[in-house]
Each structure stands twice: as C-alpha cells, then as structure tokens.
C-alpha cells in the first residue's frame, strides 16, 4: 500500500556554511541570517554595490548550502526522466539541463539542474530549502512508498539508481560556489590549470571537470543572476575555503566582490528568474507553464510524475508570471510581495511575487491575469498596509481580483527575461 507524499521540514537551528569562517572575516555575526538551515550573509558591502559588481565586473556567491545529489548506475537516466519534466536524453556528457520535479498532482516540488557526466553518472543540484524534502521524496520512490500516478495508485518508479547525498559533511561532498558577471571568464581563465581554449569554448549549460590553481572542481557555465557570463564551481567542501579565498584574492584587482543573499535575490529578479516559493509553487501554487518555462516540461515524453495534472494545469491556467518595471530609488516606497497589480482602469488583475531595487527603478515579478501580458502595457501597483498604523488610516490588507483600488505607483510590463 502506497502513501501520499507529505513532508514537514523539521525546524532546526541554523549553522554556518562551510565558508562561515571566511564570512566572519568580512562581516559581523549580526549580518548573518538563517536561510534553509544555514547562517548566510545578507550582504557584505551593500546589496546595490554587490548587484552592480555582478553587472559590471563579477561577484562571488556562497551557494554551498545548495543540495547536490549523485545519481549513478544504468537506471540513473530512466529515474531522472521519470522524476523530472525535462528530457535528459537530449543532453550529452558535459551538458547541464534545467527541469522540474513534480508530485503526482503536478505541483512543483523543486526546480533543479541535472549535470550529465556520463551515461550512468549524473549530478542533480536542488534548492537549499528543498534539499531535505527531495532526499525524502527520492528515498521513498526507491522504496516504492509513494503514490506517483493518480490513475494507477500502485504504480512505482521502475528505475533504482544509486543515489548519494553529496552534502558538505560527506567525504565525496560537492559544494557550489558561484562566480557571476562579465569578468568571471577572465578570472577563471587566469586560474584554470588546463587548456585555455577548452575553457574559452565552454558554452552556457556546459561544464568541464578540471582544476583552478590545483583545486579540483566541476566548472559549469550556469548561474542564477541573468548574467550572460558566469560559472558555478562545484568543489569538495574541504577545499571550498581555499577556492573562495583564491577567487576573492585574485578577483580583487578586477573589482570582483563577495555577494550575499540580498544581491542574489535582486539579480535573479532583474533577470526574471523564478525562485521556488515565489514564482514557482508558493502562495499561488504556480506551475512551470505559468512561470514561463513550458519549454522545460516535455509533454511528448511518455511518462513523468505529474504529467497528467500538468497538462490539465496548462489548459486551465488563467494567470502567468510577468516582469514589471516601476519607478524606484530614494523616497519611493518599495513594492512588496502580494501588493495588487492593477490594470489601466484600476482593477486588481494580479499580485507582486518578488521585487528588487535596480538603480532608479524597481523590477518586480508578478502573477497576473493573462489579459495583462503584452510588453509595454501600463500597469500600476497599490501598496497594501504593512503595519497597524496604516490599517487604521484605511489602507487595505489585501485585494482580490477585479477589486478596484486607487493606484499608488505606475509602471509598465517589460520583457519576461533580461540578459546582462
């Protein structure tokens, strides 16, 4: 008898990442905030300065809290193709692929990147906040514990690869350090121990396994900042501090800065990239199609978990994620999550999901009715009450679709994504 998959994250005290000692050299402990069980720096210098460094030179990010799994054996590809929406058969050795893990009801469990090292050897990087959930999900799938198909509750995943958690405390561990921005190629090339041409020829979503100044790592042209150039470096946790220091020392003359969670968020918002819990799943239970990532869901694949539900979701979806540019800078109140997004008549057609300051603008991602989708369409935002005092003054605490409210800030829809 199979059970429904449910996961309650046990609350745990946050601990420092493998780079904790490095961070304490640069920021006071009060600057560290708990995030997915780790104490992570919110910013080192300032969010804006770090954001601009990534756009103009490069920035270094501690992503060592991300979950990294190894999937090996003849069943690895079949397993990944069953749990992920994308077609892993389409990628070659040394290539990475974005995709989604869905549950039997088509709800997003996580967005992932799969790295193909060989036909029987894959890595999967999952979100820090979802790592424990995904490990539980996979363990249960290997043991045939969970319902994966509503039409056939006895169905199991027939593939049983060897799955290993490459967490920071494991001997074989791999942790992610991201170097993002236009100068990142020059810095990695300077430190790369192999043929420079191989590195220069590395295309987006391709990776090589080599070393930087003797530190072995997976060097991948991937990232989460909207930068056209950037790397994620997967390194053994024991060598993570050495790699972090090396990149900061050698990057310093180039203007490369360490970056915290704040800039990571503002950069990904500016680039239009979704964050699990905001533009995926979350309050509005957003699906990949609504988020603008239908291409990563291969409906022509015979089987993947959640396929029936996601086809239905696609047909019934009334809303989608858009990117909006609004006035920003000094003296302009920032928009926040759940603030209503209004059409030209002042009717609420959706809500803000995430927002960030970008010089004299605010860039926001919003979940709105498909009637509001064309680039250049004027939209406005109403500030919901954020304190008891504002409620007393008559500010609304929430607004429902089609409710008319008075606009506070006027902007427009911009392209869904932007590359820098």
């Amino acid at each position, binding site marked *: 008898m199979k059970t429904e998959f449910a996961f309650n994250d046990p609350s745990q005290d946050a601990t420092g990442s493998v780079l904790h000692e490095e961070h304490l050299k640069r920021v006071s402990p*009060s600057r560290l905030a708990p995030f997915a069980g780790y104490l992570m720096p919110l*910013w080192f210098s*300032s969010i804006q300065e770090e954001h601009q460094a990534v756009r103009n030179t490069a920035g270094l990010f501690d992503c060592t809290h991300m979950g990294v799994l190894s999937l090996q054996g003849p069943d690895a590809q079949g397993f990944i193709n069953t749990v992920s929406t994308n077609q892993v058969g389409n990628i070659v050795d040394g290539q990475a692929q974005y995709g989604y893990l869905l549950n039997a009801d088509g709800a997003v469990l996580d967005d992932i990147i799969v790295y193909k090292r060989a036909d029987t050897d894959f890595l999967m990087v999952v979100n820090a906040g979802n790592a424990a959930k995904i490990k539980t999900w996979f363990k249960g799938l290997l043991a045939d514990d969970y319902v994966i198909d509503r039409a056939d509750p006895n169905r199991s995943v027939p593939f049983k690869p060897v799955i290993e958690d490459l967490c920071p405390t494991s001997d074989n561990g791999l942790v992610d350090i991201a170097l993002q921005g236009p100068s990142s190629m020059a810095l990695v090339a300077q430190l790369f121990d192999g043929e420079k041409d191989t590195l220069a020829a590395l295309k987006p979503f391709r990776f090589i396994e080599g070393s930087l100044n003797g530190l072995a790592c997976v060097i991948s042209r991937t990232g989460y900042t909207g930068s056209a150039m950037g790397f994620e470096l997967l390194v053994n946790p024991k060598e993570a501090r050495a790699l972090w220091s090396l990149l900061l020392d050698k990057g310093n003359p180039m203007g490369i800065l360490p970056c915290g969670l704040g800039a990571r968020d503002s950069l990904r918002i500016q680039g239009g990239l979704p964050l699990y819990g905001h533009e995926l799943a979350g309050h509005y239970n957003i699906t990949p199609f609504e988020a603008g990532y239908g291409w990563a869901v291969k409906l022509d694949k015979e089987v993947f978990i959640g396929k029936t539900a996601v086809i239905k979701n696609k047909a019934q979806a009334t809303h989608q994620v858009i990117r909006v540019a609004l006035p920003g800078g000094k*003296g302009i*109140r*920032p928009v926040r999550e759940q603030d209503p997004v209004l059409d030209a008549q002042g009717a609420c057609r959706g809500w803000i999901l995430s927002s*960030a300051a970008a010089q004299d603008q605010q860039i926001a991602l919003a979940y709105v009715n498909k009637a509001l989708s064309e680039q250049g369409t004027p939209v406005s935002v109403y500030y919901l009450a*954020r*304190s008891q005092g504002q409620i007393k003054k008559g500010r609304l605490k929430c607004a429902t679709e089609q409710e008319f409210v008075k606009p506070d800030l006027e902007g427009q829809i911009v392209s869904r994504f932007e590359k820098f």
Partner: protein
Amino acid sequence: MIEKDLLYTKEHEWVKITGNTAILGITHHAQEMLGDVTFVELPEVGADLAPHDQISVIESSKAASDVYCPVNGTVTETNDTLDAQPELINESCYKDGWICKLDIKDPSEADSLMTAAQYETFLKEEEQ
C-alpha cells in the same frame, strides 16, 4: 556604535529628552539590520501618540520596519530631509537621520527606557 547620552528601547529606537522635548531615531544596530534605507514614512505633525503606537515605517529594499513611539506625546516636527535623503538613516542614524520631535507630557516616562549601558547589555543578550 551606541551614543552615551541617549536613551534606548527594546525595538532599537533612541530617544534624546531635553525638558519636555524628545527627539527620536533608530539605532546603529537597527539601521544595520535594515540595510540600505529607501523610504521613510514620517508621522503627521500634531499627531497624539501613546507608547507602542506606530510612529514611522522605515523601508529598505529587503524589509519594512515599524518604528514605535516610546512615550506619550505630540509630534511637533518631522525630519523632512528624509523624504529626499532616506540614506541619512544609514549614514548618520544618531544625528542627521533623526525621525521626529515630540512634545512629551511626562518627562519621568524616560525612566522606563534603557540607558546606553543597559542597551549595550541588551544587544549582547539578543545576539546570543
């Protein structure tokens, strides 16, 4: 980064009391937790406030934080420079980044606030 001659609240506001006038702002610790301040909602001059009433909302790119009135009083003046230069909260939280002045009814209410030494101990306890 604590000023010796000011009084403090557990919500990380500072108060300077001279006679029946109180000047209010947020502490170095508070501005550091907020990050780059982009907007300050100032109270209305003439507003009568009681302890724990919201007096201001300070917003950074990452958070909106309420500022509470520590004493009974009436707002007499607000720092309107903050409309154009909200970053003064970060750059000069104890001087140019003051938020408002209050005419206070009972200066002895100051006894309920923390001294600089008490606030320093409070901060250390909070960090642990």
